[in-house]
């Protein structure tokens, strides 16, 4: 029987474990079908729901195209990836895990840099001294562009970084970074400080609904049931 509603949950790491714990606590345990690394499953107590296990980043794309009705993923990935968030997905329920702040951080030896406004002055000075723009290492290119534009900072360029972003200023491949942090420990260990007004986004995992999926009356009922259980 074809499923009435499809829900995507992260397929690995802490997000997977935390999502499993959250759904179990809400009385609808995730059951993986087949062996340990299977990528399909069901929700205990809710017939007609198919669970698919995919990566948190891929969940954003599946929500966008409507191949899944619901998805559990981070707000940071949603806001980074989708050009028009509100017309693509609906925020159904914040889930209280996967918390991370997306922040602007600079070397802590930059005593003269405290706020975003300082960055534009530094960019001007840096261009005079080094003949090039400040480089911002990040995997959040769109969040960075929007936030820097809103803060009036223009004299920079982004270098894409997919791992160990926090090490790039010490390595000399970037001057500053935009990255996620939970406790700030990694930033401090790498001699970076968050700017006073450098918080771009307080992110956590949410249950999202796709606006592009085909919403039959039965699918809508299941969606409401899942959202209600997560609210209890």
């Amino acid at each position, binding site marked *: 029987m074809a499923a009435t509603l499809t829900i995507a949950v992260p397929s690995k790491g802490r997000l997977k474990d935390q999502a499993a714990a959250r759904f179990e606590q809400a009385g609808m345990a995730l059951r993986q079908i087949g062996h340990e690394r299977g990528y399909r499953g069901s929700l205990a107590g809710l017939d007609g729901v198919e669970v698919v296990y995919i990566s948190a980043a891929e969940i954003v794309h599946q929500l966008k195209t409507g191949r899944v009705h619901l998805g559990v993923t981070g707000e940071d990935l949603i806001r980074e990836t989708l050009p028009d968030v509100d017309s693509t997905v609906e925020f159904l329920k914040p889930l209280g895990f996967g918390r991370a702040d997306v922040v602007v951080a600079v070397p802590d*030896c930059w*005593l003269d840099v405290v706020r975003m406004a300082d960055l534009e002055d530094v960019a001007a000075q*840096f261009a005079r001294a080094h003949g090039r723009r400040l480089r911002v290492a990040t995997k959040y290119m769109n969040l960075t562009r929007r936030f820097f534009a809103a803060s*009036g900072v*223009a004299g920079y*360029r982004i270098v894409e970084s997919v791992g160990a972003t926090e090490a790039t*200023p010490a390595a000399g491949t*970037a001057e500053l970074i935009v990255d996620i942090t939970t406790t700030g420990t990694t930033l401090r260990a790498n*001699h970076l400080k968050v700017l006073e007004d450098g918080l771009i986004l307080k992110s956590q995992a949410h249950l999202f609904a796709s606006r592009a999926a085909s919403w039959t009356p039965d699918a809508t009922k299941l969606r409401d049931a899942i959202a209600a259980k997560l609210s209890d």
Partner: protein
Amino acid sequence: MSAESAKEFEALEAQARALLASFARAGYEPVAPSIIQPAGMFLDRIGESIRSRTYVFTDLAGDELCLRPDLTVPVSRLYLERHPRADVEARYCYNGPAFRFQPQGRSPTRPREFRQAGIECFGVADRDSADAEIVRLAVEGVRSGGLKAFRLRFGDIALFYALLDALSLPERWRLKLSHYFWRPPAFHELLARLARGERPDSDGPIAALADKIGKEMPERAEELVADYLDAQSLPLAGNRSLNEITERLRDHAADLRSAPLPKEVATVIDYYLAVSGPPKEAAERVAMIAHGAGLDMSASLDALVRRFDRLQQSGIDMAQAIFAAEFGRDLEYYSGLVFQIEVPGNGAEPIAGGGRYDGLLEALGAPRPVPAVGAALHTERLLAAAERAS
């Protein structure tokens, strides 16, 4: 190519042939620089606003490349490849595709692939005549494309710098204002803040350090900053030198102590930036503002008026043109006269534009500053506007 039918393609090709032929007759050698360009060159020169609209990719060798968003930088690189010493005059023309992502979606006048036809003139020391020549050829190009009704809009980046120089501001404010000139909203905020005499935060450990080193000679100040970093176990990172960090802390200290920017100075800058009108009246208005404030801007102002006179003599009706002191503030590599050709009813999308960019070639690696001026025509817009008008 945005020409998706054979008819559109033919029309664009015919227009391109006519444009290139007229540029070649004027002594401009046709060139065709690479479509794929090293990304770093563009990204360091043009800034994140065009960067975010440039198609950037990494090839299999790991090199960061881009589809050129513009032809001025590729043609400038070509000049430097041919003439590494940058010591000869050269005139080039081109017609070829350029690529820009359109965040608001594509449309016929905002295509992601478009053809830019243009001219660039390098190494000509007689800036008056080179500027006038480029504007005249751009106008002739638009006319040869079949467009008769259009308007010229001028600005002059050098005139603004002349104003800042004449105002004898503290160096740190002059640098700051000339940098923020390219970011109009931030500029007006900065000007208002300086005029209000708003001080930076005067508490906190950094203010204390800034205050301490502000009273010292630069070398001693740098030692004190080094000691502070040592005491806090903060290693130097992020490619900025001790000297750069110290310099900004000293500026901070100077801002804490200094008197506000005189209100009259802020007013003069505001008055200047508000100047807009037919070139002759606009130049008179700038002269009046300068005279009223006791400033000498005559060298730059005379240079601008000489260009206007030459254009009038070459058959362009300058009374119909506009000079706006604000114009050109979003084109960061320009350094002098800037202009665009607009069509009424075509909104903010100019048919052609250009200007002087004397700093660009040195930034691209030339061993000396090279006088440079150029113009580019947006060929799809020209064709569409000519068809609408006929």
